[in-house]
């Protein structure tokens, strides 16, 4: 029982809470009466927050992105999949776009690129899973996933990983579909799922009262960083997702104690349509 836990330094799983132990897990309450944007992210820059972009890579030395802490690629050789440092940049431009959006919102956050594209279509789901597993083990605060899989055989493992991330304080932010399609991980409750709205305000965030899409962020006609050091104009939920990732990076840099559960609550309470847009 918990007595043992008190007597040793060894951490035991908290399966139950004895009546007398309530005080020992007292959590400091930092919630104001009304959670506002100012409280949530006023003055924040994203400093100290580690964000992972699971995508097509990030172009090296892009002026809108600046320093990328680390770039790795998930490589498939035969049946073997491993993660290796990688300097090939971005294979299509999309990962660069996401990184640029995150950097725009949270200029001082730390960015890491995990390239999960390029291993061919056939290996794409196991490569995606391996990349996600690596990122969760690395303990990033936020993982931006502008991607999904429809393959049923991988859904259980993906679900498991999403829950592991949730309890390890890694917030997964995943693009929703704009088609009636069964795809994952955005449908899981342990991730933040994102669709697009039509406003041009990068900080406009709407909570959706009818999930599974939980939030809407800017995803229409967005000027995004692209290959060749420049920008292009782009549309898609996959660009709305990094807006929420950047938003979360700001909140976490100011309130690093927040768990994914609390962070999602902050997103809700500060959403434009919940009265938090001011």
């Amino acid at each position, binding site marked *: 029982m918990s007595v043992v836990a008190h007597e040793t330094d060894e951490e035991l799983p908290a399966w139950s809470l004895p009546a007398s132990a309530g005080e020992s897990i007292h959590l400091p309450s930092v919630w104001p009466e009304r959670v506002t944007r100012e409280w949530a992210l006023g003055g924040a820059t994203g400093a100290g927050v580690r964000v992972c972009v699971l995508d*097509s890579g990030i172009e090296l030395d892009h002026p809108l992105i600046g320093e990328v802490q680390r770039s790795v690629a998930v490589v498939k050789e035969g049946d073997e999949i491993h993660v290796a440092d990688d300097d090939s940049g971005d*294979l*299509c*431009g*999309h990962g660069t776009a996401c990184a640029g959006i995150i950097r725009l919102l949270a200029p001082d956050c730390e960015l890491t690129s995990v390239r999960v*594209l*390029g*291993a*061919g*279509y*056939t290996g*794409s789901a196991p490569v995606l899973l391996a990349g996600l597993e690596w990122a969760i083990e690395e303990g990033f605060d936020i993982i931006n996933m*502008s*991607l*999904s*899989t*429809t*393959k*049923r055989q991988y859904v259980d493992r993906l679900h498991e990983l999403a829950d592991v991330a949730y309890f390890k304080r890694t917030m997964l932010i995943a*693009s929703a*579909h*704009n*088609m*009636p*399609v*069964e*795809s994952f991980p955005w449908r899981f409750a342990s991730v933040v799922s994102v669709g*697009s*709205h*039509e406003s041009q305000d990068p900080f406009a965030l709407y909570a959706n009262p009818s999930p599974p899409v939980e939030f809407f962020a800017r*995803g*229409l*006609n967005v000027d995004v960083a*692209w*290959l*060749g050091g*420049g*920008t*292009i*104009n*782009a*549309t*898609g*939920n*996959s660009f709305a997702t990094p807006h929420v990732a950047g938003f979360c990076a700001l909140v976490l840099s100011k309130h690093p104690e927040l768990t994914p559960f609390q962070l999602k609550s902050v997103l809700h309470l500060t959403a434009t349509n919940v009265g938090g847009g001011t």
Partner: protein
Amino acid sequence: MSDLRAAVAAGVFGTDEAFRSLLQSTVETARAIFHAKASSVFLLDEEADELVFEAVAGEGADTLVGRRFPSSTGVAGWVLVTRQSLVVDDLTKDTRFSRDAAASTGYVPRGLMAVPLLAEEKALGVLEVLDRPAGIPFTLAEMDVLGLFANQAAIALDLLQRARRAQAALAGEGELAALSRFAARLEDAPEETRAAGLQLLAALEQLLR
């Protein structure tokens, strides 16, 4: 069992041409809806792990069908692998994209809309619409139309692939080839012979019950 049924159906209908026309009509319509310069359907060849131009309307219609490229590179590859729709403009600024496009297709689009073709859990390919009119801002309503349209194209593509698998199963001296020959002969036979054939088939069915 569904493949066997499809095989017999394919034997009767001689499908490939019909489905090609359906796909061609799909890209023609996509091009018209979005007032675009071109539209293409790419089919995923899983064995080769490549995307293949299956139907093209507008620019490149004469030259591109049958062309192949790796399944996970470029915008189409990204869309296929991630199952996410994407609209990008100003692609001419992306020198690598422009160079590759010029080298492989001879046509460098300014902008493109790309959407995955999904049938249940399979990603079959990608629908692209190239160069909608410049200067008209894109809307999310268009994105929804594109998604709906892609669903239709995916159904057509799924049928095409089933038909091809069925035809492969029926081809040559395979176990099922006799079924195909039987269906074709029944189709061409004079009325009396066909009636007798169907009677025989009914008797065979009774026997196998």
